């Protein structure tokens, strides 16, 4: 864990995550990004897990004072603290993954998570037999909500009569509660569930493993390996890729504070079907998905109105 060759560089990169990096999802992906920056760009890195807004600011300030070049606050919730601290440390660049606040040395990364979520929804709407599809989130955060909305649009595109159930676990750790939320939705007839609950979401996979004919769609990281027998695919944010994009800019001195929107075209967000379950998605559905994806790449995709 300890940085080994600090001597080489004074490119220092820090990451603040709101949860544990062992979640195989949102936080784990960011940490993988940090590690990639360390390995590929030889940066000296630092990570801190911190959940409360009071501490966001304190840690941003400490990183600024200690001469860090680039600091990631992993989530929209970091943006207020970043906006307050960034002007105090003009030599440090503050990035929040999510949010919209920008400045000279501050940027917000936006993930067009809606596009792959739409594709996932389209698959779910096509695959469901019961016509009931579920969404389970950790807590109701803007990116989660947006993703569920796009997913819903996708489901309705494939199956206008489908019913969508939305539940929130209330935290991101309680895998057992995640499983119960899933079982409750399955009890209501849901046979495809889209989960975005980090560690708690593992329970959603477990619920499907114990029930017949229920499929799960994962979020954030490639979760196709968590439970390959029940996973249709994952809506992925390639956080290492996204982090590298920004880190390269910073290192080469071309960085400008702005809203950085990362979409299907940049390949930072994408829908990844589960390769070990090829027969779960009918070929014609896959073809439709590919053609919608083509419109996305061509920037011709129009999201149907979200209800």
């Amino acid at each position: 864990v300890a940085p080994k060759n600090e001597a080489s560089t004074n490119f220092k990169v820090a990451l603040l995550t709101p949860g544990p990096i062992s979640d195989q999802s949102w936080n784990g992906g960011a940490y993988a990004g940090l590690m990639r920056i360390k390995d590929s760009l030889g940066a000296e890195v630092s990570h801190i897990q911190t959940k409360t807004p009071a501490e966001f600011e304190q840690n941003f300030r400490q990183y600024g004072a200690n001469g860090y070049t680039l600091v990631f606050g992993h989530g929209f919730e970091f943006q207020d603290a970043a906006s307050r601290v960034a002007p105090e440390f003009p030599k440090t660049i503050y990035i929040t993954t999510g949010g919209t606040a920008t400045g000279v040395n501050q940027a917000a990364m936006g993930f067009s998570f809606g596009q792959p979520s739409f594709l996932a929804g389209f698959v779910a709407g096509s695959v469901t037999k019961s016509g009931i599809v579920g969404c389970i989130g950790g807590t109701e955060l803007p990116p989660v909500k947006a993703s569920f909305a796009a997913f819903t649009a996708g489901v309705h595109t494939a199956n206008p009569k489908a019913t969508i159930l939305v539940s929130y676990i209330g935290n991101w750790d309680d895998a057992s509660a995640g499983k119960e939320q899933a079982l409750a939705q399955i009890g209501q007839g849901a046979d495809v569930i889209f989960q975005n609950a980090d560690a708690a979401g593992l329970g959603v996979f477990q619920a499907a493993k114990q029930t017949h004919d229920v499929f799960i769609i994962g979020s954030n990281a490639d979760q196709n390996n968590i439970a390959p027998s029940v996973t249709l695919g994952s809506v992925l944010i390639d956080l290492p890729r996204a982090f590298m994009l920004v880190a390269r800019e910073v290192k080469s001195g071309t960085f400008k504070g702005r809203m950085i929107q990362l979409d299907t075209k940049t390949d930072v967000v994408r829908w990844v079907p589960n390769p070990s379950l090829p027969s779960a998605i009918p070929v014609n559905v896959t073809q439709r998905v590919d053609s919608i994806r083509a419109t996305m790449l061509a920037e011709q995709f129009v999201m149907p109105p979200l209800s």
Partner: protein
Amino acid sequence: MTTPRWLTRVGVPAAVTVVVITTLLLVVLLGGFDLSRALRALWSGSIGSSYAFFSETLVRASPLILLGLSVALAFRAGIFNIGAEGQLLAGATAAVAVGLGFSQLPSALLVPAELLAAGIGGAFFAFIAAVLKRRFGVLEVISTLMLNFVARYAVSYLVRGPLQEPSHAYPQSGALPPAARLPTIISGQQTHLGLLIALIFAGALWWYLRSTAVGFRVRVIGAGPIAAASSGRIDVPQVIFGVFLVSGAIAGLAGGIQATGVTYALYEDISPGLGYSAIAVALLARLHPLAVVIAALFFGALEAGAAAMQRDASVPAVFVAVVEALVILGVLAIGRVRTQIAVGRLTAEPAE
């Protein structure tokens, strides 16, 4: 007895200290990080520099002082109020609501109004538990705990509903305008007026418990409720009710200074369990208001140092938790801190 007294007095704490340090080293070895760097980070991140002390330790200690006082006051009266967390959230909510709602007021009026609202908010939350205790005989140890969860979800709802920021994108309130913020008191540092307020409250509570008749009644009730009623002829339920509200108000005020002095807005996760740490703070201080200040500083420094260990010495968060736990256990073993209260005294009897 065969073991000489001095041996148990000195030997046991010494042995525990050795064990604690050994465990610490073991943890470090397992984690494969640099111990001296970690300890240096702990030191420099907490009290090793004026910035760390004034902007990190003191800022973290300020709400803990008030919360510790809130808990100490309640416990002194024999009220097992573990609802400081919920009362803090209620206070922060009320402060932010007032700060945003009356943002045109001048700062000299607005800030006191916010803090007053915070106190009332905290008192209101304690009021629920106090009524449940008095009218329905519900033990406050459980009602306050349940109310903590209710408060958490209430805030979660409010920041997505009535109190959500104007763009309605994020689960947080709008930001308090500068006039609605607590000023800092040391230039170049983050220490805010809340610290002074907390210190004043500590002194006042100390004086109140020690020197006033009302404070004496509170202490008497905590130490011997039956004798208080019989010999002191005190209306015990009524005093308890009042103390409960005051305790809630102080915890609410902690939420107020946190929102107006540090975060400048209401967030779901505005408190990382400060209300629970406060119980340890109060007990470590043996419920003495002045000692609460010291205990809160200790916890504030520990938290600040812990953050530095993550940042500067690459000690992962989970290791940091272990180190913090070991430090607290070490202090316990050496200080041999014992409880001053017996929870069992807290028999709830519904008023007739």
